[in-house]
Structure formats: C-alpha cells, structure tokens
C-alpha cells in the first residue's frame, strides 16, 4: 500500500505531462489497463490512439474518478488534490484557496493522497477479484483436492512461466497417471494470480480427436480468440489473425493431453512463431524432440515420503483407517510396487478398502510387471473384480461420458437407473479412484481418467475400433 501511495503521488505530479514512466502511469493497476483497453477498443470510433498522451489521459481519468469518489467522503481533500495537481496551483495558493495554513495544507495533502490510494486500491481489488474469477472460469475443474510431493515442481513451473525472457513453449512431460494435468492446473492457478496474462485458454486434446491434431488445435484457438474471423478465412489468414492476437497481449494457452507425435513439429513451429509475449504450456507423455524450440519440464514419480503422504491422505478420505495411520515403513511396499505413480497408488489404496493389502501387493509382484501399462492393466483388473455389480455396470457405461462428465441425474435418465443405485455406485467408484469428480459444488459431474477409459474399452467393452 505504501508503494502504491508513492506511485499515486507520482502519478498526480505527472498529471500535466504528456508521457510518463510505468510507475507514474500506474501501469501495473488493472483499473488503468482496463481504461486503456476500452480506449483502444473504441479507437476507431473516437479517433483515439494508443499513444503516450492517450496513456496519460487514461491514467488521469482513473485518478479523476478516484478524486470524484473522494469528493463524497472528504470534499476538502478532493478540492486540495484538484487544486494542486489538476490546476497546477502551488501549495501556498491551494492553502489560501481552502483557508488553510501551508503546513496544514501539506498535512491534508498527505492524508488526501492516502485516502485516494485507498479508494483506488478498493477499486483495484474488486477488478482483480472479478478478473481472477473470469480466468478461473476458463480452467477445467481441478481433478484433485491436494497435491503431494509436487509443491516444489509447481513453484518451479510457475517461476518458468513468469520468467520475462523465455521459454515460451513449455511441455510438462511424464508417463500416464503421473499427474501432469494436476501439476499444470496448479501452476496455472498460481501464475494467473499475478495478472501477467490478458487471456487464458485451456484446450484438452481428446484421444478421439481427428488425425490432424495441430490443425484442430489452431481451429479451436481461432474459434475462442478470433470470433470475428470469417468462416471463409483460409488457414493462412487464420494463423495470421492468431499471431496478431498472441503478439498484441500476453496470453497463456494450455494444451493438455497432447499425446500424439503426429504433426507435433509443425505445431511447435507455429506455437513458437505465435509466442512472446504469449506462452504455451503443453502436457504430454512424449518428450519433445531436441530439434524443436520447447522446454521439456520432466515430471517423475513421487519420492517415497510424498508417496506415503498420498497413501495416508487417500486412505483417510475413504475411511481405510489402518492405512491412514500407517508409518512410512509400512507403506513402503506400496511405493516399491507402484514406483511412486500417483494414480496407481490411489487405485491400490482404493483396493485396500476391500482386499487385504498383502494380497494385492503379492499379486502385483507375482505378475512381474515391467511396463507401467502392464501394471495399470493388472491393477485395473484387480479393481474391477472387487467392485459390486452395480458399480461395475455404471463404470462400464462411463466411456459414453464426454470430457466434461455426466451429472448423476443424466445417468439416471439415460440408463434408467434409480437414484440410490447411482449414488451407491458413484460413491463406491469415487472411493476406489475409478471415477473422477468434476464440475462444481453446484453441479457435480463424473468422468473417468484416460487410463481407466482405455482399460474399459479394450478389456471390458471390447470396442472394435476407437475413434
């Protein structure tokens, strides 16, 4: 607040100037940025440009509105500021006009600037809250309650995102179920709270999207960011428009689940061309080729301590008390089998609610699984066999849910299930980490992880072909 007060004073002193510094233009304030954005948006109609003079005018407008508010609270303070900075009166002249001594006027001016700063800060806080809410609405619901063992990784990724120089294209790389999306989500939530970005876009690449993923992503970006682009626009025109948008203001674009290597290089080339000041954050299982200009942010399995914390947390959530209070040493066999893969850990804890833990672990060890996919397949089979018939039936239907998930009442209507059945089955599946809770607290939806879906499609449903 002290810093802002100094900046507000500097801005008032610069009232009569035609340009200014970022500080005396109060450029870091969203209320000033909004005023400017509105002016630029109306530029054609009102012959206003984004010149230094316009920028000063917009800052003065914000200050003037603040002083008008101050007028209602403390008319003398408002008149003093107007006289001193807008009219350019000396302190002595202003003091005479308000029938104050010069010393009294100086003290009143300090107090008036403090009051004005408070008014501007209240406005700024309200705008920031609304802005943050709007940015959060662009994010998909977080698929986690708490992150384990990745706090440092989140901080590191935020630092990379906020680096004013580079990198501009960052890929979070890791195996399935490792928590790439959760990490990206947590980092983005932290990064947007600094208001560095004008816009946020979160795209999720679906496994059943068409072959030309790169083109699909560019088309989706254009649909979201360039609404005025005519349908007749060619790919070249579209990309030009996107480039202009990304260059004009810093955007953060998250492309989640970019699993295909097809067209990757071409897409990365485009993203690099669009980048700076905009940034692109990808999540992928595929490490990006060294030939591309992108930063590989590698995400590894959880370390033993974090894995143990996750086991206890998950066990506590679903009421497996013995595991919730187990020591790190007791939990270590789970870590040894899963290698610290978070999804695998959660599935095993879910299984431990219905099967003895030694049996689950012995079974996994006996299978001598070398690949992560084999391990998942095995764990999923164990989980499947331990489900109630109702839960099995509901889970089998879940590949029919899109990425946003289904509401319980939709499940009831679609599949002619009664409410108690849906409630019991969803509770069982959520506790077993086989169903993900999506949506908001006002509108709960349920979906499944990609690995769960892949298991169901290939092992249970036997879909002849997946698009």
């Amino acid at each position: 607040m002290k810093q802002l007060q100094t900046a507000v004073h500097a801005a008032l002193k610069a009232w009569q100037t035609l340009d200014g510094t970022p500080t005396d233009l109060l450029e870091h304030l969203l209320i000033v940025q909004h005023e400017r954005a509105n002016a630029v948006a109306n530029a054609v109609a009102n012959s206003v440009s984004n010149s230094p003079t316009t920028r000063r005018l917009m800052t003065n407008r914000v200050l003037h509105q603040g002083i008008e508010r101050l007028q209602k609270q403390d008319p003398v303070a408002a008149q003093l500021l107007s006289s001193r900075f807008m009219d350019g009166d000396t302190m002595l002249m202003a003091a005479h006009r308000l029938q104050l001594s010069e010393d009294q006027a100086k003290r009143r001016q300090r107090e008036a600037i403090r009051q004005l700063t408070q008014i501007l800060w209240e406005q700024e806080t309200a705008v920031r809250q609304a802005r943050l809410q709007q940015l959060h609405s662009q994010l998909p619901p977080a698929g986690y309650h708490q992150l384990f063992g990745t706090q440092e990784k989140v901080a590191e990724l935020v630092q990379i995102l906020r680096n004013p120089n580079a990198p501009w294209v960052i890929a979070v790389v890791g195996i399935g179920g490792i928590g790439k999306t959760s990490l990206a989500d947590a980092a983005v939530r932290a990064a947007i709270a600094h208001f560095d970005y004008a816009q946020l876009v979160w795209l999720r690449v679906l496994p059943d999207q068409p072959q030309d993923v790169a083109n699909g992503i560019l088309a989706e970006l254009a649909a979201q960011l360039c609404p005025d682009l005519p349908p007749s626009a060619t790919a070249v025109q579209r990309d030009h428009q996107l480039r202009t948008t990304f260059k004009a203001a810093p955007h953060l674009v998250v492309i989640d689940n970019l699993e295909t290597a097809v067209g990757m290089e071409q897409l990365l080339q485009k993203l690099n061309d669009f980048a700076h000041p905009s940034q692109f954050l990808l999540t992928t299982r595929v490490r990006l080729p060294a030939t591309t200009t992108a930063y590989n942010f590698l995400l590894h399995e959880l370390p033993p301590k974090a894995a143990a914390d996750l086991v206890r947390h998950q066990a506590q959530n679903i009421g497996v008390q013995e595991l919730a209070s187990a020591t790190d040493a007791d939990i270590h066999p789970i870590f040894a089998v899963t290698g610290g893969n978070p999804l695998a850990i959660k599935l095993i804890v879910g299984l431990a609610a219905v099967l003895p833990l030694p049996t689950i672990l012995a079974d996994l060890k006996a299978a001598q699984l070398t690949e992560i996919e084999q391990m998942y397949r095995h764990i999923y089979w164990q989980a499947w066999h331990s489900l109630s018939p109702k839960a099995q039936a509901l889970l089998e239907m879940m590949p029919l849910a899109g990425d946003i998930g289904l509401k319980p009442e939709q499940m009831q209507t679609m599949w002619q299930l009664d409410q108690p059945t849906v409630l019991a089955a969803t509770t069982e599946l959520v506790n077993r980490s086989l169903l993900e809770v999506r949506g908001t607290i006002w509108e709960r939806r349920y979906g499944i992880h990609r690995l769960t879906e892949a298991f169901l499609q290939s092992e249970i449903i036997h879909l002849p072909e997946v698009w």
Partner: protein
Amino acid sequence: MDSELSPRFLKALQATLHYWLAQTAVLDDAAIHQLNPEFPNLLRVVKTGIMLPETWRETADLILQVFFWIEGANHIGQWQPVVAKCLHHMPTNESDHHFRLLKQLGQLQRLHWELETAVNTLYARLIRNRKTITGTLRHYR
C-alpha cells in the same frame, strides 16, 4: 479384436442414443442454448455410435436431427469429420440415410467455405441417387 462387444455397453449406448434423440426432438433457440454445454457428451456418444453396426442407424438419425444445434452453436469444425466418418461406416442398405447425410455434409462444407468439396459432395449424392430421382428431389428440398 476377436472378443465380442459387451452387451451391457451396447444396451447403454442404445439407451443413451434414445436419450439424446428425445432431448433434441425440438430444437428451438432456447433448447439449443440449454443443451449446448452438453455438446461434448453428445459428441462422445455419436462418435461411439457410428463405429458399431448395431447402433449406426440410430446414430445417423441423431446426427441428422441435431443439425440446427450444430449450425446454430457453430460446432461445424468438430461435426464435419463426424458426418464424414458416419458415411464411411455406413452399412450397405442405408441409401436413404446416405443421401441425407451427404446433403448435410455438403451443407457443413459450404458453411466452412469448402465450396469445391461441397459441390463434389452434392455431385456424389446425385450420382448415388440417380436411380431414385424423386427421392433426391424430396431430400434436396
């Protein structure tokens, strides 16, 4: 894959298609506005339904029925490959659906300004339907 498709899943898919057919029976502006957030769910069901011979026909009916939703909410880019794929997986005895799907595909291509492709699609439709001109005229209207 040699294993047989799960009957329980097939039944659920058919029930889901019925649900969507009922939900989209009347598509005025208000209905489209209300249904639009559910588009990802519709897309998933349709993409699954067209891959299976058992559900192809109902899925094609649904595709044809939701055209105004797709057009009105501008899902054309995502929908066009769906209609093309539906045609690709069409059983041999579905000429009536074939004509209508070709017509919709042509309309989607035209809306996407793929004019030359749209003309070719319409031409393919006319060729296909040359033996039943009255059918063509009826559907073209």
